[in-house]
């Protein structure tokens, strides 16, 4: 096991007093969170606890009613300009991959760099091939998503997000929709990314992954952050009852 | 437009309903046989039925009504216009309903047929008790959708010269020279019949879509 590299003291994401309602249902309660550059955070908690909602607020896929979110110094309000700027800096990987079925793997990876970053086709393709090679699916570049396995598709989704050269990567249960035998290849890719110093926030139930790479594990329940601690402490000496109960349910 | 004119339209409406009911009822019976033949497993029969369906789905209803109307007269069968139109609508409906129901029969999971066969049910029992009830349920939204299409289709009897609702409208319109009022009222009368059916069909589709998953 490797020693975690120290994260820099500069926060890249700051959430202050963020609250969100769906109608009368309160989905997020007073969320305060600062993520440092290079920090790797695992978010866990029972389903419906608001962890996906929280990370989806960071790139404004969800709106929120109260509080502030800053990404790399940019205040994320409702201004389109700010939202665009943030989305270019923040990559996201989804549970259902969400590859575009009508484009080849290569086109999936070049679309956004060409459209939002204004890269030329050749430069975008170069970059895409390099990153597809890194996630070990380069030989599939000319195929369509439906022709790939779930694990390959998810690795392409990671490469597609990386093609925007984001400063932060968000993972929303990236292995939950995968067949068991494909979970490892995706986790290995994520571990590689962590080792290269990427700032990551991962919603996942893969506690082995949390132990291995996380700087901090955050436990959410009922829309609030209940507990946060380094993995060592989180798994051996959780302080809250709900955390203990949750760990009792998911750990073997 | 006075009361007498409106009454004339209502008489036309009565004939529209009769034509629709006749076409749907007889077309339904014939359509069931078309669907069964189309899924019978006998290649020659299936291909014949496929051609029958393709013919009626590839030609205008108006042509079908013309050909039946003049064709029957040609071979010496003199029928009242509404009977002739009903025959045309029946043939038309049998092809469309046959195709809708073929799709529904094929949409019943094949395990159902296999289970019925494993229970040694013969063709009639297998179809009547196992496959068709499920197929009927699947087909209901499309069947109701076609009924609406058929009701609207009866308006073409007007071009053949039979006085149902649309032709009644035409006649009144020529008498009182208020085409917009008259065809507006005619449209409302069709709408009053068709819209409830459309709503029922749409609701069923929603319900099935929700429960089907």
């Amino acid at each position, binding site marked *: 096991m490797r020693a975690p590299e120290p994260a820099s003291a500069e926060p890249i994401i700051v959430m202050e007093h963020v609250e969100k309602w769906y109608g009368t249902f309160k989905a997020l309660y007073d969320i305060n969170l600062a993520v440092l550059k290079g920090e790797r955070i695992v978010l866990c908690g029972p389903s419906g606890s608001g962890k996906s909602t929280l990370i989806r607020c960071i790139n404004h896929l969800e709106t929120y009613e109260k509080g502030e979110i800053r990404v790399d110094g940019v205040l994320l309000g409702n201004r389109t300009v700010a939202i665009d700027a943030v989305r270019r800096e923040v990559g996201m990987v989804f549970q259902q991959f969400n590859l575009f079925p009508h484009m080849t793997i290569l086109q999936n990876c070049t679309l956004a760099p060409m459209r939002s970053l204004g890269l030329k086709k050749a430069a975008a393709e170069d970059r895409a091939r390099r990153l597809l090679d890194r996630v070990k699916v380069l030989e599939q570049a000319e195929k369509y998503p439906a022709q790939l396995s779930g694990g390959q598709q998810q690795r392409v989704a990671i490469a597609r997000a990386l093609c925007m050269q984001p400063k932060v990567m968000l993972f929303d249960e990236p292995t939950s929709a995968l067949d068991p035998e494909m979970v490892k290849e995706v986790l290995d890719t994520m571990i590689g990314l962590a080792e290269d110093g990427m700032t990551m926030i991962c919603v996942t139930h893969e506690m082995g992954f949390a132990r291995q790479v996380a700087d901090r594990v955050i436990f959410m329940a009922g829309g609030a952050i209940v507990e946060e601690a380094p993995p060592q402490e989180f798994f051996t000496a959780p302080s809250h009852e709900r955390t203990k109960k949750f760990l009792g349910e998911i750990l073997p | 437009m006075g009361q007498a004119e409106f009454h004339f339209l209502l008489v036309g409406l009565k004939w529209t309903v009769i034509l629709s009911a006749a076409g749907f009822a007889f077309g339904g019976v014939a359509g069931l046989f078309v669907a069964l033949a189309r899924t019978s497993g006998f290649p020659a029969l299936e291909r014949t039925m496929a051609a029958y369906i393709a013919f009626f789905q590839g030609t205008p209803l108006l042509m079908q009504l013309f050909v039946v109307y*003049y064709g029957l007269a040609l071979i010496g069968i003199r029928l009242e216009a509404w009977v002739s139109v009903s025959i045309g609508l029946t043939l038309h409906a049998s092809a469309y309903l046959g195709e809708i129901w073929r799709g529904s029969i094929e949409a019943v999971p094949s395990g159902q047929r296999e289970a019925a066969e494993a229970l040694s049910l013969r063709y009639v029992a297998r179809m009547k008790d196992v496959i068709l009830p499920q197929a009927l349920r699947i087909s209901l939204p499309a069947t109701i959708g076609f009924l609406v299409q058929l009701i609207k289709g009866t308006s073409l009897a007007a071009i053949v010269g039979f006085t149902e609702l649309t032709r009644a409208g035409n006649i009144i319109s020529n008498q009182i020279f208020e085409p917009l009022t008259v065809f507006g009222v005619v449209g409302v009368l069709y709408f009053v019949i068709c819209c409830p059916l459309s709503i029922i069909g749409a609701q069923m589709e929603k319900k099935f879509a929700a429960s089907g998953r």
Partner: protein
Amino acid sequence: MDYKLDFSPVIAGMPSLLLGCLGTLTLAICGMALGMLIGVGGVFLRDSSFKPFRWLVIGFVEIIRNTPFLVQIFFIYFALPFAGIRLNPTPTAIVALGVNGGAYAIEIIRGGINSIARGQTEAGLALGLHKAEVFRFIILKPALRAIFPSLTSQFILLTLSTSIASAISAYELTSVSQRIESESFRSFEVYFTDTFFYLIISWMIMRLFALISARLLSYPVK
């Protein structure tokens, strides 16, 4: 049965029948194009946040879908002059076909767009694409692919209903045939021949759609 079939008036009238076929094709294709325009515009209004537009579109769609095309074509034929628009029967028929086809197209296109999983839009937005870019590059093609079968059958129905335009004497196969029939009294022969022309025309339209689908809209799916 002492009646003898006599196709000679049909053969003599063949040139005008073929021109009638062209008229039918013209009506059908112009009607479809107008229908698509109305369909796309209607979807835009239908899903706009301005409530009155939504109700207007919903009302329009329901009125068209629940009344006969023949009544619609009469209504439009008489209504256009009232609105100060004077059109010949053939353009009037195209307007009626477009309005009718457009109402169905609105529902079909909406269904197609809604059938595209929400995650596709989210993935596009998360990559920093704008809403219009997401629609253009991510939603459009899969949505078109999803609606193509129902769009094809709807436009075949539109093609067949061009024959109803004969009621206002638009230039197409059925009205040409009616002229030949009224001169020769060979009704059955004329209309029987027409059915084959219509079969060929609807087959051509179907092939055209299949070709478009294969050329522009195919990609592997699970």
